[in-house]
């Protein structure tokens, strides 16, 4: 097995780990925004910490920012794996690379709906400046 194939697989794993960390940061920022939401907006869920912490568009946009970067890492990982697969089209390397691609695929599958779906990020975005 070529070292390049193993390195690509290993690096894809590292990118997924970093992407997972970014996604957790995004979730954390989003949770902060939820926690600080006025109670009227989400009765039955968490209790707001205080009135001063109104829903913060910065939290929601920062969440999108970190989530977007997490998705970019997934794309990067798949991109690297595909390019390396094109250079090593034998069955064994392809099997290894396909296996490695499952991880970024799984993370992207989790991220995409949250990033592009009709989530809170859009509902609570601030009114545009114009």
């Amino acid at each position, binding site marked *: 097995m070529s070292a390049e194939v193993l390195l690509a697989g290993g690096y894809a794993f590292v990118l997924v780990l970093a992407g997972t960390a970014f996604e957790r940061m995004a979730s954390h920022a989003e949770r902060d925004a939820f926690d600080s939401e006025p109670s009227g907006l989400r009765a039955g869920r968490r209790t707001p910490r205080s009135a*001063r912490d109104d829903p913060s568009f910065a939290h929601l946009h920062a969440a999108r920012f970190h989530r977007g970067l997490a998705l970019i*890492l997934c794309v990067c990982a798949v991109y690297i794996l595909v390019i390396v697969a094109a250079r090593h089209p034998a069955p064994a390397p392809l099997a290894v690379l396909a296996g490695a691609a499952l991880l970024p695929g799984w993370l992207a599958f989790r991220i995409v709906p949250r990033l592009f779906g009709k989530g809170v990020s859009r509902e609570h975005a601030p009114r*545009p400046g114009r």
Partner: protein
Amino acid sequence: MTQPSNPRLLISRGWLQATVLVFLFGFFVLGLLAYRVNVAQPPVPERVETPSKRVVFTGDDVMAGQKVFLSRGLMQYGSIFGHGGYLGPDYTADYLRRAAEFVKAEYAREQRSDAGEQTAREFKTNLYDPETRTLTYTEKQAAAFDTLRSYYGAYFSDSTSQKGLKPSAITDPDDHHGLTAFFAWSAWAGSALRPGKDYSYTNNWPPEPRVGNEPTGAMVTWSVLSLVALLGGIGVLLAAFGRWNWLGWHGSEERAVLFRRPGEVALTPGQRATAWFFFVMAALFVAQALLGGSSQHYRAEISDFFGFDLAQLVPFNVARTWHVQLAIFWVATSFLAAGIFIAPMVARREPRGQAGLAYALLGALFVVVAGSLFGELAGVHGWILNDWFGHQGFEYLDLGRFWQVLLTIGLVFWVILVFRVLRTRLRTEAVGNMPWLFFFSALALPAFYAVGLVAHQEMTFTATEFWRFWVVHLWVEDFLELFTTVMVAYIFVLLGVVREKVALAVVYLDIVLYSVGGVIGTMHHLYFSGAPVEHMALGAFFSAAEVIPLTFLTLEAWTFLRIGTAQQQRAATPFPHLWAVMFLVSVGFWNFVGAGIFGFLINLPIVSYYEIGTALTANHAHAAMMGVYGMLAVGLALFALRYLMPDDKWSDRAAKISFWSLNIGLAWMVFATLFPLGILQLYESVSKGYFEARQLQFLTGRTVSLLEWLRLPGDIIFIVGGTLPVLWLTWRGVRHRVPLTTEEPQGYFFTEGSGVETDRP
């Protein structure tokens, strides 16, 4: 209009005293280290001769070679002591390896069974006599020099562009002799034992077992201690601030603000002039990014730029020189413009003639940029070899001294512009309040940029590196950071979302933390450049502490932002700065990742020993410089542009595309290429040798070439989607500037009611 006044300091005097104390301590230590580097640097021998008294080369040859190396832009191609460009080899390591191999082969030819040991012994033995200022080379070392002079002669005379240099770059045999002497001197400093010590002048750098160069005890010890400083420092600081809330901003901000809509905020003539600054900034940014793409292409495909031999016209060292110089120019242009834009908001007035003076400054800036870039091109091509008008050659301080002096004068002129606006406000404010900090932080920019003038081509390379990093590190990482912190804090104050007292505490904290780590931490660039070992010890220990404020201020900046945006939510009018704030969010991210993680990654002396001058350095440089200062410069431009053009001419869509493209492009550049390439290069350096890791054979290898190509999509996104929308927006700012208001400037403020409300203690 009521002039605000705060004759008393808004926060405890303890902050001011701590700041002054830490600042003075840092510069006192730096002064001592300047003295030490002066007396303990590797000497340049008056002559180098063999035991039979044949002169191999002289000190004049070394200095002449250094001048050729700098004036022909070779520091932007390869490196000395690991400092410089990364396409060419490190000439210290290159000479040392080739000379050692030559000497060892000579011993082997004599059937010596201990050829390797004898070679190492020969290179380690320091035969410099300080009385006669003569260095004695063994006959074999002298023969190696003669052989390598021919080798480097052929190397620089190469009539092709296969190395990324212009064809027949340097053909004069005297220049070849000088360059070889310069390389030989650096290799001697890298291998010969420092008098009374068991390591070389460069702390045994480069790693080269053939001459007995291995990591030193101090290197490992201070690496460990710097880790302790980092972890302990973060723990103590977080515990202390979490426990006592010194900054006082974890309380609530109860005021409600009413944001003025863009178009309702009256602008002064000086502020309107900044539209052109931002346009020039964006144009320089586009040019800088394109040049970055072209210098990157050399690494992917060295002698073919999509069918065109670019090195005939813009060799690698020209592209890289322009790339790094323009990085400073475009960011500085944005900061200068932001200073001119903010000052009238602070002072609530603007004297007559400010716009004319601002345009004069912009014109002077244009002359400096054009003149210095041409001088650098002329230096590399050999048309101008004068360090005043040609290529001065120091990486990041490449501009000729004439242009360097003009730029310093321009920065002083800019401080005068800011001062004449602030003058009346300063009279009524206690020294130490925000208006004074704004002025002092502006004043620090020309003052510390001017320190770069101390470095000149007639000094030894060790001494020039010491002074160069006062600009590259201290100016950029401390004083630009300070100025931007003051400006961003002030913008939040002017927007009415954070009280002046809170902002003031943040700024003082910033100064204290950065002065503790950043000032002495400058020495982390000088582990292996010939400075004595205390530079490595203090540099490693204090620069580890630099990561603490990066971590801490990122967290506190988040709180800052949270309080600010909570205010915005209460505002009765829309907040107009979504994308400027988002750029600030990305600054926080890249500050932590690029400067903090990637910076600390290469900060430990033991890591730097194998890594310096590889893609991991470039990885840190790009993530930190573009990620922090670049994003901030664009954010400041968007903030000002929002007011410079009518509301209906503004495009949130363009700002959004630029924001995402710049961040995606930068992340792609870092994670698809620079970081993995740096790791591979580090592995090559440790497992095979630093010499091997810096050779073109490695850089053009199959896997490395693939990694270099991988960043192409990210670079396209960065250039097309990231820089062009900024250029378009700034052009609209010039084309559709809001009309000049001649009435009493009631609307000089971004908010109504509490825009520039000040606190009393």
